[in-house]
């Protein structure tokens, strides 16, 4: 279990990194914390001609308060978010989600941006970011662009990133102090990927409500708008409604999968409503 050979670059600026990607012409891959990519390289299920290690780019670790939003650098680690070192404008939700991602030693290296770009369907950040209404900042040879997290997440292990683009930051709207959230994850053991994830955010002061499910079974993060009305109105969605929303997203869920996703969603929505 040793990684195949690759060339290695360690740019110190975003511009350099983007140039390296362009030069790699599709054969170059970004290495962030490497906590998913390196295991896949070791298993030889991922390959790259060139790894562009963005660990030396200080700008990617910056967190800037923009007033109503905060721009979190893509290179901020899970552990930084767990410890609240970047400030908490989300009523503790980021720390809560971060705390249950893998293990501390992984969280010390793994990054928010890396997790979003890797787009594992069972990962936490894609679900949490969608639930918080994040937008992502991308840099490419033609400059920057922003995408809503729903548009960034395309499919299992697939994002809207072009091969010469990189994720530089995540812009998160702040939650009002009165906002409520719930994040429910059913997993086989501590630190494991979720078998079913439900994230619910309700921020009445901003008129913002999101219900998001995630997991491999549902093919990654998915917003269940049909359930958001009930949360917004403070009522409890019927079990049949929850199941119908899930079935619409993923008709092939088996009975077990349906049950665990519906349960996580119901409990999350109830927690937000109570």
């Amino acid at each position, binding site marked *: *279990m*040793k*990684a*195949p*050979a690759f060339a290695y670059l360690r740019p110190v600026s975003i511009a350099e990194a983007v140039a390296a990607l362009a030069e790699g012409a599709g054969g170059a891959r970004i290495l962030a914390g490497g906590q998913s990519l390196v*295991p896949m390289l070791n*298993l*030889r299920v991922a390959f790259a001609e060139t790894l562009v290690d963005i660990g030396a780019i200080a700008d990617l670790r910056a967190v800037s308060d923009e007033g109503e939003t905060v721009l979190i650098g893509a290179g901020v680690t899970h552990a930084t978010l767990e410890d609240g070192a970047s400030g908490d404008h989300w009523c503790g939700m980021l720390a809560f989600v971060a705390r249950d991602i893998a293990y501390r030693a992984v969280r010390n290296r793994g990054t928010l941006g890396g997790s979003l770009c890797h787009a594992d369907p069972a990962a936490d950040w894609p679900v949490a970011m969608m639930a918080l209404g994040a937008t992502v900042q991308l840099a490419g040879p033609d400059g920057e662009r922003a995408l809503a997290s729903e548009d960034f997440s395309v499919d299992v292990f697939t994002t809207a990133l072009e091969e010469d683009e990189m994720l530089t930051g995540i812009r998160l709207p702040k939650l009002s102090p009165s906002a409520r959230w719930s994040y429910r994850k*059913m997993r*086989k*053991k*501590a*630190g*494991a*990927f979720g*078998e079913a994830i439900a994230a619910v955010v309700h921020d009445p002061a901003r008129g913002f409500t999101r219900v998001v499910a995630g997991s491999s079974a549902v093919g990654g993060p998915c917003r269940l708008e049909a359930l958001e009305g009930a949360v917004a109105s403070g009522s409890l969605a019927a079990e049949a409604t929850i199941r119908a929303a899930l079935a619409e997203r993923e008709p092939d869920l088996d*009975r*077990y999968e349906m*049950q*665990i996703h519906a*349960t*996580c969603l119901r*409990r999350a929505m109830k927690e937000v409503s109570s």
Partner: protein
Amino acid sequence: MTDTGVGASLPRKEDDRFLHGRGRYLADIEMPRMLDVAFVRSPLAHAEIVGIEKPEEAGERVFTARDMDGVVPIRPTSNVAGHRIVGSPPMAFDRVRFVGEIIATCLAPNRAQAEDLAERVVPDLKELPVVASIDAAMAEGAPLVHADWGTNLSMETRFDSGIEEQVARATVQVTRTLDMARQAMVPLEGKGALAHYDARDGQLVVYSSTQSPHMIRNALCQCLGLQQRQIRVVAPDVGGGFGYKAILHPEEVIVAWLALRLKRPVRWLEDRFEHLTAGANARQHRYRMTAHADDRGRILALDAVLTTDAGAYSIWPHTNGFDAIQASGILTGPYDIGGYRVRTMTVATNKPPLSPYRAVARPGACFAMETLVDAVARAVGRDPVEVRLENLVPAAAMPYKAITGKEYDSGDYPASLRRARAMVDAVSADAGPDRLIGTGYAVYTEHTAVSTATISQIGVQMMPGFEQAAALMQPDGSLEIRVGVQSHGQGMETTLAQIASEVLGIDPQRVSVRHGDTALSPYSTGTYASRAIVMTGGAVAAAADKLAFKLREIAAHMMQCTADDVRLEAGELVGPGASMTIEEAAVIWHFRPFDLPEELLRDGLEVTGGYRPDGDRAPFAYAAHAARVAVDPELGTVEVLDYVAVDDCGTRVNPMIVDGQVLGGVAQGIGTALFEEVPFDDQGQPLATTFGDYSVPAASEIPMIRLDHMETRSPYTRFGVKGVGEGGAIAPPAAVVNAINDALRSTGAELCAVPATPRRVLQAIFDAQDRAAGKKEAAR
């Protein structure tokens, strides 16, 4: 008891090097010009090898079975009538029979480059139909794993004590089908081997991460056609074994052969992917159990069919039938049952060969028996503990001859269960709508330190005989003990020193225990079957006895009395009017020979002692376990809230280490109960190939296990010890599933398979819901 002898919780002598990262494991050994191995393994579960395309410049860097001329494939032996056996070939010749079987061996200066090379070896495989389960293998017209057998049934055994009379008296019949999944053993250090040829000694030296150096040497001699004196096998520090390292691995043969052929060091280190695929080889049993009981739940007869999913080959030395033989021999467990009928079927499938994992087969047998006892209790409407107490062999019946023919030597089984119940009842847990609470029990008895008679009956090449230990008094009176068992976590460098201390009164800090090296230690079949403290402990005591006698003779001569007048007390040789230390006696023999008569000088202070229990009888350890769990009935998740084990391994040489053995066994058993499984699809593809899919419980999943001990001395063993290495792993699958079923009683669900994953738990609940709905429908 001395404060450093038998019964002392002495801190371990091995800890210091491990705590400083100074252990030396196989991967830590480096040799000049060493080559690393990567294997090309079969991606298919069953295929014909049409050809193997090697990269052009491969030369002496890629080898296949066709290169291994003159190497004899190892073939285990068996006395079971009609047992069809095929040993594991080192590399597949013309056919592969499981995913992960070795097709080619690639060598390079490091592992990464060896893997690069392996990627460029292209096997041309023609797919053959696969049997990946018992059902598929036993179906009418099933594809055959070994065409010349004409069947996939490798071994079948039957035992029948006669049960008609008991069946006629029984008023209750309870039948269940119970499944235990296939597991990987997962020692944290993978398997590995490093071989080189030592021209000066004229020896092939094989470093192997093994539990049984002499056994590996036996096997390598057979395969390579060498004399025993021409091979030295050394086990360095071994990072966990659990049975995985008690068998011959084909990789060991390949590495040894390559070192001879290339005349340079060759090393293979198993990685985790290899382990979880090619090494997914443990536990897979299915039981069809019927209890015939009276209306109090007294079990009168047990009627069982046991089928093992045994994989494609027979491992050496145990064969593929070891699980079935062990399980059928202990299935009635600690109970007094008058009638027993069992049929076992060992079924070949396109999977890695079934191998003995900690407590070989007994976790499956205990799971089957103990969940059946709970089902009987439910059927007669009684408390499962009460039903057990009514069925357990009472203390007064010891020694007890079981219906299986085994003799249980000593103990009080009901008392252990009562204690476990009292302990678990003392702590309560709060239930809630998402949290159903249940308590489950399991009791087992365990044949430890397997006897020579038992092994010779089965006929496998693993004959324990008399275990040997050497005690070498050094010129300064310090002591070196040499043993052929291999300590890989059990702390034998400490416990065997304690036994020497018990006999000689010597400070364990002045004792070194050397083990795991055929060049140093007397012959031994190694560490397995919870045997080391019984067998090797006894042998060390026997050697120490011999040494003590010699030291007393020396002292007697110096004190002008008879040896009978000299006592050994706390390292002192005490005569009627004088005393001397062991050190002084050692110094006299080595440096003042003119002070001693010739007959005391002649044989020296280096002795070997041999031991087996009185009459070659095995001590039976036992325990009662209790688990308390919380089940989320909507998610199917299970949390073990409390776990209690009350065991009896006779005299405890080092109680701290005994606790450690039980705790570690229980944690592995909880893994079997709730987490660990390598599922295979119907094409024989393993579906859990990383720790992402194969869940090994961590501290987060294992509660702070609570222990209590009973201490009934075995009448047959030195110091009254019984084995304890494996027992902890036996009961948890049964206790945990009984606890889950207790928690689910309101739902009507009953789980009959492990691991009890959320999917299995919810499926049991769905089935109960469907049954209830069906009944409602029928009533309408």
